[in-house]
């Protein structure tokens, strides 16, 4: 593996398609909010935001081209953050 070159330029079309998907998902999340589904709203908003974030991560930020090391790093950070939230809420849920 040649580490002295970087950049994994995808065809421009891939970026445009990603952008399109992001815009569509934005419209979707906005639409759901207009429907006023009460308790589902926050959950749906977070789910869609997670999908949008992943799209940016994998396509715009080229994570899908990176070596496994990056995946391990994401996992470490993601799990730790999830644990921070989870353990904090152990307190709040049981108060």
């Amino acid at each position: 593996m040649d580490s002295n070159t970087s950049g994994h330029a995808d065809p421009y079309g891939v970026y445009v398609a990603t952008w399109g998907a992001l815009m569509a998902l934005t419209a979707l999340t906005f639409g759901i909010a207009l429907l006023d589904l009460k308790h589902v709203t926050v959950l749906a908003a977070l789910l869609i935001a997670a999908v949008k974030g992943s799209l940016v991560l994998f396509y715009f930020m080229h994570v899908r081209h990176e070596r496994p090391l990056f995946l391990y790093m994401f996992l470490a950070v993601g799990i730790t953050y999830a644990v921070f939230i989870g353990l904090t809420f152990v307190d709040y849920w049981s108060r």
Partner: protein
Amino acid sequence: MTESQATMTAEPVHAADHVDHYDPLGAKIGMWLFLFTEVLLFGAMFIAFAVYLRQYRIEFMGGSRELDRYLGLLNTAVLLTSSLTMAFAVAAMARGQTRRAIGALAATLLFGAVFLVVKAREWGYKFSHGIYPQSETMLDRPVGEQVFYGLYFAMTGLHALHVIIGMAIIVSAAALILRRRIRPDRHIYLENTGLYWHLVDIIWIFLFPLFYLIG
């Protein structure tokens, strides 16, 4: 481990041997580690948001309904588009299309500026209605709404600050391209600029629905 196979600068360095140490992968790892700190920075604020959303559900919904969701939507579109142009810039640079890369960066800057203008309008609108920390209108509200607006100003303010920093980095990247310090064969600086900008975008992707759409 994959990195141990990677070429590195471990060869002996002889006297008067000037080694130009360029390690894009190392730079990218460093950048990602930095981005993790940004994620956790906002992450802590999101934890605070989650805790208070649970505690003050009604007030948060009320506060959210009061925000201008169309301006929020507009800004989301603007920032997503700026991410697209940023991705264009990196891709163009990798292909050696320097002029196109500069153009894409300029577009990104423009969208960033639009985002900030809209944001400023939105804040100004709130201020003119007496909604700012410690205002009399604010102090009359239920505490839950005060907390909502506290987090709103703190989090969107911090995010706007990141947009401004991102724009400064983009300007520096453009300058480095013009001075041929960023070249098609060594453009990790531009790539890292892109990573930063996209991260700022991702953070907004989460901020937008949580503040504007829970009403």
